[in-house]
């Protein structure tokens, strides 16, 4: 497979089509428009590929829910305010156990915010986002290659666990260009018994999230919980970077982790041994793996492009066994690696 140079938004689209996504619905919103445009042009060239520009984000998520029920691999994408609108449908897909991939190219918020890269949607993504007792798997890619790989994997996980899966990137990841190699997709494994195609001569099926009897609803909640519990135990991913000899570890994901790597390089040039712990799955959060790092390193600095959201997961993971500091740049502000390195030096000095 040849290496190609593409922008992040286009990579997600191409990876989705290669993974067998045959239904995309979306609504324009910056900074993810290139993805919608890529799908408009390319998904229809794939056999059976369907593109609908929906009248709203709400319609888009329900269109993919319908197509998912009808047996297709489906995706929608948006940016923060649009993802808020999709939450009703995401909750519904979780309830009805419909697989699908939702891409959030996060921008500054709350409200309309701005169109700059941000990580302010971490809570919304990792806590389910919509109403009710459910979870969504969330991937936080940090390179264009990961955008390609994780987008493809997201479809497999969505099918495997019959649940919506989210790609949480940001405007920087969406607009960035890097060389990428598309891996060979795995053949789809999805049981036909979950698909609605009309009853034929057999028994009719129905898919529903309304369960009026509280005992039955409770049973459904526990069933979903058991599924999420398996995901939590099995499907975490993370990267450790230069932690072996580190005096302190930066915890960051996505774009923030890229900046942190640059900062670590500069810190090490000045003989400050910093390392990085980078969650790749944001839910499930790799908490036991982070705690394992705290057995030898006692100082952690969480860096996020928000006022501190993943910070809470780091606290839960470390349970007071290590010191945690935080540095945040919310609202679309993106520090340079040099700037972050300076902040880290100051944060360390203050404590020594």
């Amino acid at each position, binding site marked *: 497979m040849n290496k190609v140079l593409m922008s992040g938004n286009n990579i997600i689209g191409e990876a989705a089509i290669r993974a067998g996504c045959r*239904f995309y*619905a979306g609504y324009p919103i910056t900074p993810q428009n290139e993805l919608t445009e890529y799908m408009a042009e390319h998904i229809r060239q794939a056999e059976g590929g*369907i593109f609908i520009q929906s009248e709203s984000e709400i319609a888009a998520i*329900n*269109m993919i829910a*319908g197509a998912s029920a*009808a*047996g297709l691999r489906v995706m929608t994408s948006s940016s923060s305010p649009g993802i808020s609108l999709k939450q009703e449908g995401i909750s519904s897909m979780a309830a009805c156990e419909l697989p699908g991939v939702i891409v959030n190219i996060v921008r500054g918020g709350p409200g309309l915010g701005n169109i700059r890269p941000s990580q302010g949607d971490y809570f919304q993504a990792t806590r389910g986002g919509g109403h009710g007792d459910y979870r969504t798997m969330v991937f936080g890619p940090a390179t264009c290659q990961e955008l390609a790989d994780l987008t493809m994997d997201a479809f497999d996980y969505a099918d495997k666990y019959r649940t919506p899966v989210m790609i949480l990137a940001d405007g920087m990841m969406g607009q960035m260009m890097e060389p990428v190699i598309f891996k060979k997709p795995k053949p789809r494994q999805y049981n036909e018994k979950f698909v*609605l195609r009309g009853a034929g001569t057999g028994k009719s099926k*129905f898919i529903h999230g309304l369960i009026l009897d509280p005992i039955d609803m409770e049973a459904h909640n526990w069933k979903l919980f058991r599924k999420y519990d398996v995901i939590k135990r099995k499907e975490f991913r993370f990267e450790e970077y230069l932690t072996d000899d580190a005096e302190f570890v930066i915890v960051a994901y996505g774009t923030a982790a890229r900046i942190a790597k640059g900062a670590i390089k500069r810190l090490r040039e000045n003989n400050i041994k910093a390392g990085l712990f980078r969650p790749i799955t944001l839910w499930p959060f790799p908490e036991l793996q982070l705690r394992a790092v705290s057995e030898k390193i006692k100082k952690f600095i969480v860096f996020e492009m928000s006022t501190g959201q993943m910070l809470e997961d780091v606290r839960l993971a470390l349970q007071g066994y290590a010191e945690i500091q935080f540095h945040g740049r919310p609202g679309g502000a993106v520090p340079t690696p040099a700037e972050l390195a300076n902040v880290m030096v100051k944060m360390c000095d203050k404590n020594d």
Partner: protein
Amino acid sequence: MSKIIYQRPESLKQRIYHYCPGCGHSIVHRVACEVIDEMGIRGITIGVPPAGCAVLAYHYFDVDMIEAPHGRGPAMASGIKRSLPDRIVFSYQGDGDLAAIGLAESFHAANRGENITIIFINNAVYGMTGGQMAPTTMLNQKTTTSPAGRKQILDGYPVKVCEIFSQIGGATYIERCAVSSPAGVKKTKKAIRKAFECQQNKLGFSMVEILSMCPTNWKMSSVDSCKWIDDVLGKEFPLGVFKDETTERKNEEEAHS
């Protein structure tokens, strides 16, 4: 030898309705199932019930079904139909579902000319939630959220869905019926058949609005409810075919092929 002249349609499950006595839903379910039987499309039909009294329609229709969030039926039906173009896909919606919270989804499904059918139950109230004012509530009609009667200055006017939807380019067949009389029930059945045939022949978007009784929330007897449709509701929402471009679409189709 005795001749069977009336029996449960095969596509209708043998189950006691949860609907109130005198409610129009059960009548519409029945005639829709009769049409499904007569057209022999049970095995290829997929229905999308709404949030509302008919949310449990999958207990009655013996066809594949998937529940939609409130108002989103036409979006979901669009997703299903585009994925499975040879299936008959219908969305079953109430007045709040279609003309308030889901107006955008319904309007744009029609405008895209989605080859689906909407069965639209207009009973002038939100039924399941206890009789609140709907977009189709009559002026001066008392509901739990318009206790002094609907006032246009505060609440706007009854929304005339067929009149509006017949203006939409993508819509092919739009008819309003009522199930308040035996003749009306027969007409409703014919209209649903026409809509499903429109879809079967790939002629585009079809919708049948049905004026339907809600004796519980109207606080009337079943008989008075039927009378209220004939005397009052039917005057505000006149019955008839508002748009029928099935012939034109068929001719276009033939000209293309």
